[in-house]
């Protein structure tokens, strides 16, 4: 007999197999998911839920597709959390100014409560990446925030009303565009392509029958 657990999903009680994730348990219970369900693999951040165990004070947060149901779980959803993303022209930013601080001044209101970090389903050190942004260390902020899925659980719990995911994203774009060294071989190759260097060889290959291509393919030297 399959092990079952008792859970409360969006205010209704259900008995569901213990092996299911919260998302699967909702479907088992009969919900037809439209909102709050995206990649079902922990990448897209669509399925953030809040829950507490029956009778307990502590509020917990999770991604529904990545978390198993447990006896006594009472689950609510965070299917669309309003974020305050600022618009900017990425070509007009400069690494030398306090650009993240200008666009997201609320990062300086951080009171260091660390609720963001405690709530991150990805296990990221969210408060530390906000601190890095405060110091203007965008590369550090980019690195620490890299695996953010944008579920915005942190934002929903932040007393300083920071939209952490947007801060991390801005820091990553800044880092990639302005702080990381440019890529010389890429620039050279782009120039070669624009000058038409490969056009004649490609035209030749395009005209070859499958048998001739196969001979060439089977004779390829594979880089070690």
């Amino acid at each position: 007999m399959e092990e079952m657990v008792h859970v409360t999903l969006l205010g209704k009680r259900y008995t569901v197999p213990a092996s299911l994730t919260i998302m699967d348990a909702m479907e088992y219970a009969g919900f037809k998911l439209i909102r709050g369900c995206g990649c079902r693999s922990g990448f897209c951040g669509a399925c953030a839920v809040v829950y507490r165990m029956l009778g307990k004070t502590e509020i917990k947060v999770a991604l529904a597709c990545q978390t198993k149901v447990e006896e006594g779980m009472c689950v609510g959803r965070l299917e669309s959390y309003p974020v305050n993303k600022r618009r900017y022209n990425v070509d007009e930013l400069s690494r030398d100014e306090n650009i993240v601080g200008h666009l997201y001044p609320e990062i300086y209101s951080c009171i260091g409560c660390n609720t963001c970090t405690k709530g991150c389903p990805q296990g990221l050190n969210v408060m530390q990446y906000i601190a890095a942004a405060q110091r203007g260390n965008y590369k550090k902020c980019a690195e620490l925030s890299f695996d953010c899925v944008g579920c915005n659980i942190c934002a929903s719990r932040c007393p300083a009303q920071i939209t952490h995911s947007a801060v991390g994203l801005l820091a990553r774009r800044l880092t990639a565009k302005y702080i990381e060294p440019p890529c010389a071989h890429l620039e050279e190759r782009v120039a070669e392509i624009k000058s038409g260097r490969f056009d004649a060889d490609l035209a030749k290959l395009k005209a070859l029958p499958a048998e001739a291509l196969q001979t060439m393919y089977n004779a390829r030297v594979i880089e070690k």
Partner: protein
Amino acid sequence: MSTFTQEMLDSMKLVEATRAERLHKELPRFSAEEKDKLLKEFHPDYSAKGFTVLSTGPSKGSKVPNELAVLLEGKSRLEGVKVDLGRIDYETDVLVIGGGGAGAAAAIEAHNGGAGVLVVTKLRMGEANTMMAEGGIQAADKANDSPVTHYLDAMGGGHYKNIPDLLEELVENGPLAIEWLSRLGVLFDKEADGTMVTTHGGGTSRKRMHACKDVTGAEIMRVLRDEVQNLGIPVLDYAPAIELIKDTEGKAAGAVLLDLDSNELLVVRARTVILATGGAGRLHYQGFPTSNHYGATADGLVLAYRAGARLIYADAIQYHPTGVAFPAQIYGALVTEKVRSVGAQLVNSKGVAFMNPLETRDVAAASIIRECTARGNGVKALDGVALWLDTPMIDMLHGAGTIEKRIPGMLRMYQKFGIDLRKEPILVYPTLHYQNGGILINKDAETEIPDLFVAGEAVGGIHGTNRLMGNSLLDIIVFGRIAGEKAAARAKTVTHGALSLDHVAAFATEREAAGIHTETLSPKLLPTYTHGRKTR
């Protein structure tokens, strides 16, 4: 708190016992003849019972998966419904249907081309297969490589069926795509001097796989989505297109949307339309699990087919060799090919590495299926059998910390379920991953229907009958950009007659004449799962 069964643990001991000996061993590759035989005998695409020959529509006579045939020949959601095409809810120059990587790239370039753009999506922008693409993006931008070499690799991988014009666009625009993404602020893995860190993927002859750790697609997708927002492009969520609208001259001129919140139909009039609706994994061909997102139900293929566009290679499906076979919570999810490109071998239940881990995806999948079925060397996992992917080898080969640095997403995914892949190998089996075929386009990304463009996984022909790893993230950018640019340019000059849904009625008549009377509504929009529930 490992959750492996005793049988798994026993087999794992055999894997550990042979690890040192296998570590630096060069595993032979299959010959061309061996590959052919393997595919014919063990690849699901060669299973006769999995396919149906279409009896109606523009690709009548072609073979497609059973589950797709039912939808392509299905009943329109507008059959018997009166739609007032005189009441326009949204008017735009370029309508982009789909909010994944191809749709976002198309929207950005259409906007940059001076067009008014509206993006409509079934879920939300970014809840798409792009977000889940882990391994990387190919581009021939290093000195020892060239678009010519890239072309040959993709041709061989695609069984020489790739459409030359499309493949040429793909490989020549590869480095330009990487440059475009870099300028937008996509954070690629680089050396201290700016050199791109590149690796092999299955079937590549040069190391041209660029990556953003092991969440390359997510990094690209979140930057593109952010840019769409920066540009102020309107996006309509939870509003899938359920039919295309044409004009009286047969040109694409908009779409009917279904608002999933209000259940109302919405009419969009557009000068040009870009379909970027993605793949079909959630149709679960031949009962396979899938690595695809919740909305991957081939909607765009259905819409285009009903409007008169031909499909190509719709019977060529990519099974990713390494889907998660255990634990149950992530069953079918992807174990990125990067795990093999950084050194993990595929090992059977007896501890034998039975193949070179960098064969192309179709060959690798067929080889794994053979090892588990005909040869009986699988490990029992959940309802089926599986094989080991020997992940602890990676740190042994490249030094401690490599896994954490190069495949942190994988590490984290397994850690959630009590498995440390630095210490324990993982169980894998092929998962339904990608639709190699799709809607036929020309090199301007335009279909046979004037003013209808397609980009991304809904396109067929670029990859022949088997796509190489890293060429899909590339094609969504390359053809997304082309579609956006061309659709914007066309929108400036095009003139349309009155809006019409006559093609939908005509398809119904054709369906009737072919003797198809199924009630299955299509497009499917979303799958239904009950997880074994019998009573509620």
